[in-house]
């Protein structure tokens, strides 16, 4: 680090020899350019980073940039915006205050914390305020009626106007589907020259000699029959020093540098292990992943696995590149060998396990998972894979039985609630939910019994309860729901108990659209009074709200709540009775 701190990067600002032409002239030139011109450009762009520099040069011209900036409208200067902002502030504040006021008396968690700022909960008030604003906006002037789609487009923010690229590709996809249906014999092009085959042979032997350069252009030019193009092959345009490429006498340093620049190199001359490793270490030192991988591909081809793996072990950066390269090119077998050789058995196990995703047939998949059980997983992962296997095995049995039952139409539940999808490959909890939905009352001995599932997979009480509750509520089987909470103490009194907070119970029931009378029972069981009132208000359980305020002896709140209930309703009468009751000792 210190070294770096001391290092001062030098940026020479000396003006290099520039052959600048302005952007405008280049564009013009381009339009005029015939094939010869583009041949010249090909030469330049073909040397990788050269193309970047090429463009840069064009644009560093100052005049050019100024011209660009004048054509683009800038947003208004900021100082003005700031003043107008603060001018608006008081008005805005009043507005917000108004909107927030009605919320102030609502209970929310912010009260217990510092961020008494804003809540998403009970959005009703804000939503209605928003709705009013919306109404107001919509009602402004009849001018809106004059709107037409074209105008909409002209303001240019309807993202994908006709003519955009995404739009066009979509159109093409649509037209392709049409084309797909036509009997599609491949159209044989009459102009297919017979030399097409032989041309593939032009491919230069060495990979890293690589670059299209002569080889490719030649292919092209031959085809085009325009031999003049050849005059502009990159070699001719290059400075002398780069000719060295052809005789491949680059040093390791120079080679890595060329790799970084995306230029062609030959690695074949690095034959001793020492040279190869030097090359690799230099690439790593240059922090260029592309160069590192390039060297690794070469090493993979020219070193035996044992040696390669051994050397990579002490070179973590290179190793990670190699692993990533093998992953991307899907060389699973070699990757596994590597991980095992490195003693990274847990990773190897996971990698092997992952393969199940490529097996579509459920029986084959199950068998594959079974074969994974012997792998050396880390930590608890072995148990998780075991569970995965057991689950799929069971799903296959349940699926077969239920599909049959559904077809035969003997069980009512499948008729009333047809299965939307197969249970195969679903997560465990989804399976449990399914079993609670279709097989709730089965004896514990069957595979599909929820209790059996719970037992087998050691599902926690809370988890089981949550899932069963949601499933029975979905079926609107309130008797089952009710039964889940019943427990009797030794005196035989029944009392409602739940491993889940009643607040959450209400939440689950409400999400399954339980009627108010059912909700009310459970809202009443929420022990925290504040929370209870909040929930009761949200779900319109007036009795609970009224009773809780009565118990809290909070006259003001009760009076306030009177405004929210319907005029002339039983609730209103009840509140009135309470408020006029002399015996209650109100606290306010």
């Amino acid at each position: 680090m210190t070294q770096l701190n001391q290092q001062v990067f030098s940026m020479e600002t000396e003006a290099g020899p520039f052959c600048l032409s302005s952007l405008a002239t280049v564009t013009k030139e381009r339009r005029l350019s015939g094939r010869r011109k583009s041949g010249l450009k090909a030469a330049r762009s073909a040397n990788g980073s050269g193309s970047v520099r090429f463009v840069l040069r064009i644009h560093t011209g100052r005049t050019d940039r100024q011209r660009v900036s004048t054509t683009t409208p800038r947003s208004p200067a900021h100082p003005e915006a700031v003043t107008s902002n603060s001018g608006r502030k008081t008005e805005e504040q009043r507005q917000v205050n108004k909107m927030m006021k009605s919320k102030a008396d609502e209970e929310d968690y912010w009260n217990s914390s510092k961020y008494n700022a804003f809540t998403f909960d009970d959005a009703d008030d804000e939503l209605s305020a928003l709705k009013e604003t919306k109404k107001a906006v919509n009602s402004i002037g009849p001018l809106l009626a004059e709107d037409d789609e074209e105008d909409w487009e002209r303001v240019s923010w309807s993202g994908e106007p006709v003519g955009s690229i995404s739009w066009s590709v979509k159109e093409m996809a649509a037209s392709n589907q049409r084309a797909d249906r036509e009997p599609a014999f491949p159209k044989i092009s009459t102009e297919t020259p017979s030399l097409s085959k032989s041309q593939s042979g032009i491919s230069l032997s060495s990979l890293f000699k690589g670059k299209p350069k002569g080889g490719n252009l030649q292919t092209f030019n031959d085809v085009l029959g325009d031999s003049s193009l050849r005059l502009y092959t990159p070699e001719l345009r290059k400075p002398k020093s780069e000719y060295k490429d052809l005789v491949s006498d680059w040093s390791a340093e120079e080679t890595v540098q060329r790799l970084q620049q995306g230029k062609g190199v030959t690695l074949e001359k690095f034959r001793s292990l020492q040279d190869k490793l030097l090359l690799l270490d230099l690439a790593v030192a240059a922090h260029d992943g592309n160069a590192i991988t390039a060297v690794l591909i070469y090493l993979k081809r020219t070193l035996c696995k044992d040696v390669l793996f051994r050397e990579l072990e002490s070179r973590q950066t290179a190793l990670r590149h190699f692993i990533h390269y093998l992953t991307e090119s899907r060389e699973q077998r070699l990757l596994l060998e590597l991980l095992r050789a490195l003693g990274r058995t847990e990773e190897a196990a996971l990698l092997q396990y992952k393969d199940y995703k490529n097996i579509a047939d459920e029986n084959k998949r199950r068998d594959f998972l079974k074969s994974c059980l012997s792998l050396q997983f880390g930590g608890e992962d072995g148990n998780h894979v075991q569970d995965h296997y057991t689950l799929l095995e069971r799903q296959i049995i349940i699926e077969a039985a239920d599909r049959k039952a559904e077809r035969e139409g003997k069980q009512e539940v499948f008729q009333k609630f047809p299965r939307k999808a197969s249970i195969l490959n679903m997560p465990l909890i989804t399976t449990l939910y399914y079993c609670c939905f279709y097989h709730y009352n089965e004896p514990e001995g069957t595979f599909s019994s929820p209790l059996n599932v719970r037992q087998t997979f050691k599902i926690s009480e809370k988890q089981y309860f949550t899932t069963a509750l949601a499933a029975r509520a979905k079926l609107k089987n309130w008797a089952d729901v009710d039964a889940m909470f019943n427990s009797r103490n030794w005196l035989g009194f029944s009392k409602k108990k739940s491993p889940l907070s009643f607040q959450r119970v209400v939440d689950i029931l409400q999400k399954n659209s339980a009627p108010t009378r059912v909700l009310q029972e459970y809202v009443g069981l929420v022990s925290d009074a504040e929370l209870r009132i909040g929930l009761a208000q949200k779900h319109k359980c007036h009795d609970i709200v009224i009773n809780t305020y009565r118990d809290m002896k909070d006259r003001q709140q009760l009076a306030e709540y009177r405004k929210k209930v319907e005029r002339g309703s039983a609730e209103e009468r009840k509140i009135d009775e309470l408020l006029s009751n002399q015996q209650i000792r109100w606290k306010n």
Partner: protein
Amino acid sequence: MAHSARRDSPELPDLSLLKRLARDQLIYLLEQLPGKKDLFIESDLMSPLDRIANVSTLKQHEVDKLYKVEHKPIVSISDQICFLIRPRIQTVKWICDVVNADKAAGKFRRYKIIFTPQKFYACEAVLEEQGVFGDVTTDEWAFYLLPLDEDIISLELPEFFRDNFLAGDQRWVRTAASALHLLHSLFGPFSKVYGIGRCSKMTYESWREQVEQGEQKARHAEIGNVFLIDRDVDFITPLCSQVVYEGLVDDIFRIKCGCVEFGPEVTSSDKSLKVMLNSQDKVFNEIRNEHFSNVFGFLSQKARNLQTAYDKRRGMDIQQMKTFVSEELKGLKQEHRLLSLHISASESIMKKKTKQDFQELLKTEHCLLEGFEIRECISFIEEHINRQVSMIESLRLLCLLSVTENGLLPKDFKSLKAQYLQSYGADHLLTFSNLKQLGLLVEQQPGETLTVMESKVGKLVNDRTAGKLTDAFSSLAKKSHFRALSRKLNLVPKSDEEYDLRVPRDMAYIFSGAYVPLSCKIIEQVLERDGWTGLEEVTRLINGHEFAVTGADPQSKSDAQRIILVMFLGGCTFSEISALRFLGKEKGYKFIVVTTAITNSSRLLEALLDNNV
């Protein structure tokens, strides 16, 4: 927004130049393949391409039909095919299949691959292996930088995050450096470069080499300072729910390349609408950085102003009316449309957030950030998992718990992981393995000193109590890096003060006053101190790799010194951008954010699921 805003903010350089550069280069490359040709575009390149060119541009350069790369046999009948792709091995393999299929059918065509932003040797190796090297010409389109707005530039490389931080592949380092080099050549010379993180350091090094190799023309700098920061310096911030308007819109509707698609629920018609979200949208521009609670107030105020403006036309004579129609009406109508759109969007956001108990979720997040009632947070997360609520959301909370607490207690880890796998499927074993590797979700390792203490105390009490003591001790002893950082940098403001979100006093407003984003706080501190002096403890906790270097002689008084390019390697969130805009206003800076991609909690975690390899 804030009263203290300085009025002398410097002007931003004009970034639209980058678009013209990219377009011109693409046109030039297309002309390398003269004649009619079909163009196959990789799907994730389509939106970026849309920002800089359109179909008619392509048609002008003899592109006949456009297709999406779909890894299926192609139907094109053109005798020239051009592929515009990211340098990915699987895409190149597909192209090889196409070429080989043509060969087998005796069909002759010309093929050209344009790799963007650069080509990789690994891709060329595939061409060679598949025997099509030489049949296919390759080229590079150095399209590094897409300006999404006047102060945001994206490299549109979401894979940067996974490749670099999870796989440890440095292939994009040079790309990032080249992008920086391009900016340096156009808007430099930079006078100072600060940075933190391993990748930042490598990027800096690689960029420096490019500067040395290239030539630099003396010119007037437009961007003075640069700050490079790795995403893994701060994982907390992108894991938090966003509550600033732009961030919230991104979390809910997903902004893609500066454009959002509002569904029927927002447009209140049967079709959805794509909308560009940037500073050109006057209404959006005023609310994008606001905390969501301020947005309603603003919108209704705006509605009233609009009404007044429309009302003006009452009592006008013909001449005045004519002027009104020709000068003001169009602007008003446009504003009107934007206004109703953002109102509908806000409405839709409210509905969605209310439905998913956003309130409770935020409470849990804030508690985690504060280190308060962690047990309650854990049981909230557990219930979240039990109920099979959003898989990503559960994972996000787990990670937030782990990063703020410096890992989970072994028994919590074991139980939460088991329950997660039960709820969302056993294949998430791979997800957990990835998260562990990245350090996002880990098990606490019992410290050594702790074991000594335990065994001493353990002798005095019976076994069961000893077990409980272990828990107690480990929660005492775990010294979370985040907690220490948070104390050091004052990231969580004092809890006894009210925080008025309408008048934000610091960057914490982007998280309802509960937390100052770590990444932005570091930037603020370093700029203030002009280096890392005094931040030694902080950098040690973050794991170092910080640097601050001086280059060209700073033209001290020039505006350029107050224009700061912040480059996020691995992505940044809209909330962070909002925070930096706020900081800029406070201190008289202007920030230009360069990011490898815009990210948020979902994108971050989705990149780590294991279904894409």
